[in-house]
């Protein structure tokens, strides 16, 4: 039997506002517990919410960024349930009239093919607080700093067919929201959290299988692993004459274990209704137009421009345009050095490798785009070879100079083209290897070609790779054959 996987995602994106969605309390990360939870966030009696304009703007920006419909009249509703990290007893969210309607996101897969994932809608809502389950005398601790942080929840259609597509979509969405500047994209701090709906069906079958939802995945790696594991579990279950039950599941990225959290049969009845404390939000055309005029270049457009302006391959352009900071770094290095191909190779090569090894972001790179451009310029004008350039890069990375020229000067890495200097070096090599010189001169001419390689090697080594190899060859021949 051939099985087909069907995946839909719900993504919570934390909007990068200074204050909460309904109160003027700060949203800064890492504050002491409950120091950023005001009376509104705590749901104390008599408080009233006031909507944060910036949360509305950022939600609209997302809609415009994926070319979705914007609902000009959108309504907040109450989703009623009891949990200690939700002190009001309801989450203020949107249901019937979400701010962002249907849209599309295009993804590129590893084989270069593209696919469109439909967005069903995206709505605004508030985040809940955090429960700490360490033992407080048999009780749980509640930190409400996060309560009221603005989120958009993005809901896709079940358009993805395997883990690779789901991860490609997640990465694309990350790229879109960070390019728009509506989210800091820091997944380790929970700025983007993915809920994955997975079901399987026989290939060719129209009807969808029963789905499960794995909640709160906060890395691409965990998401991929959780999907693969869940697909395998469902197929095994059905092939053993079992049945998938609709349920919420948890995946522990550290242990790789998944378990059932609660089944939908005992699911909550949330009794949504329009929030009487909030009036409908009306978005004027002037606001839409102003925000549209502020839209940055989106990743798809940037990629197309990199291919056409810089003649990059689709795959290289996709990676370079995916992250705002990487794209800016590449573009600056390409423009300043005047060689986009070399800039692309270096950013995707040495720069990425060094960033990964040091586990830092490109914004913190000790080698700036300008420094890289300076290095590329020295490769282009033959001051140094590509091999020496790697040494210079490493020195720059380790802070051994302010630019390539200083490192080249200080370490004496400039390619040697001075005949006198090369002759002197060769004389030393010949003196130190008198026996080999004798052997060479005794050998018949047809064997000498091979034997000269030894002397070239010694001379290059003596020059630490800096001598011009063509000149070394020429001078050696002259001296040995005379």
């Amino acid at each position, binding site marked *: 039997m051939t099985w087909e996987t069907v995946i839909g995602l719900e993504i919570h994106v934390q909007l990068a*506002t*200074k*204050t909460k969605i309904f*109160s*003027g*309390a*700060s949203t800064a990360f890492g504050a*002491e*517990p*409950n*120091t*950023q*939870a*005001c*009376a509104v966030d*705590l749901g*104390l009696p008599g408080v009233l919410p*006031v*909507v*944060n*304009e*910036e*949360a*509305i703007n950022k939600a609209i920006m997302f809609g415009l960024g994926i070319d979705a419909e914007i609902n000009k009249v959108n*309504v907040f509703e109450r989703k*009623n349930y*009891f*949990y*200690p990290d939700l002190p009001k*007893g309801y989450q203020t969210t949107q249901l019937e*009239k979400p701010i962002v309607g249907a849209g599309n996101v295009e993804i590129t897969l590893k084989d270069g093919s593209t696919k469109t994932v439909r967005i069903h809608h995206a709505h605004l809502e508030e985040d809940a607080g955090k*429960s*700490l*389950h360490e033992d*407080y*005398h*048999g*009780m*749980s*601790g*509640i*930190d*409400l700093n996060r309560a009221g942080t603005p989120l958009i929840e993005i809901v896709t259609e079940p358009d993805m067919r395997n883990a690779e597509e789901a991860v490609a979509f997640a990465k694309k969405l990350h790229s879109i929201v960070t390019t728009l500047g509506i989210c800091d994209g820091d997944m380790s701090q929970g700025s983007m959290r993915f809920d994955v709906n997975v079901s399987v069906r026989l290939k060719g079958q129209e009807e969808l299988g029963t789905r499960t939802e794995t909640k709160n995945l906060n890395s691409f790696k965990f998401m991929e692993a959780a999907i693969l594991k869940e697909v395998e579990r469902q197929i095994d279950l059905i092939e053993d004459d079992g049945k998938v039950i609709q349920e919420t599941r*948890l995946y522990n990225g550290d242990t790789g274990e998944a378990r059932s*959290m*609660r089944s939908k049969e005992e699911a*909550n*009845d949330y*009794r949504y209704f*329009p929030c*009487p404390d*909030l*009036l*409908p*939000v*009306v978005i004027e055309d002037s606001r839409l137009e102003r925000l549209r005029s502020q839209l940055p270049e989106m990743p798809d457009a940037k990629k197309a421009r990199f291919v056409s302006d810089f003649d990059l391959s689709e795959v290289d352009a996709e990676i370079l345009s995916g992250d705002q900071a990487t794209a800016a770094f590449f573009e600056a290095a390409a423009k300043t050095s005047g060689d986009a191909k070399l800039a692309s190779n270096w950013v995707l090569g040495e720069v990425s490798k060094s960033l990964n090894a040091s586990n830092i972001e490109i914004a913190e790179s000790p080698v700036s785009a300008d420094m890289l451009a300076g290095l590329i310029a020295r490769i282009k004008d033959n001051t140094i070879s590509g091999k020496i350039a790697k040494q210079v890069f490493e020195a720059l990375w380790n802070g051994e100079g302010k630019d390539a020229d200083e490192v080249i000067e200080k370490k004496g890495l400039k390619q040697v083209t001075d005949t006198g200097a090369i002759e002197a070096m060769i004389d030393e090599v010949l003196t130190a290897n008198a026996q080999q010189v004798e052997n060479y001169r005794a050998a018949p001419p047809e064997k000498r070609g091979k034997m000269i390689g030894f002397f070239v090697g010694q001379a290059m080594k003596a020059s630490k790779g800096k001598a011009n190899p063509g000149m070394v060859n020429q001078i050696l021949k002259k001296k040995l054959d005379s």
Partner: protein
Amino acid sequence: MAIDASEIQKVAHLARLSIDDSQVENTANTISRILELVDQMQTVNTDNVEPMAHPLDATQRLREDVVSEENNREQLQSCAPAVEDGLFLVPKVIE
């Protein structure tokens, strides 16, 4: 539309309201009468009426994104039954 005792108990549980067993029947009758009024309203023709999300014909005012609240933890936690390390303590939550 009538509502029966079991539904009253379910809704009460969802709203975390405690309704004494002896009161369930009476509550069901009262709420059924309210729902009858709703049924009566449902018979009005509303074909050309735009549904309202709020009784006031007004739109939401928006607030500038500026921090206006200071840390007021001590005072806000003064009415909490149990607090430790700045956290509110609640009966253990197990998922």
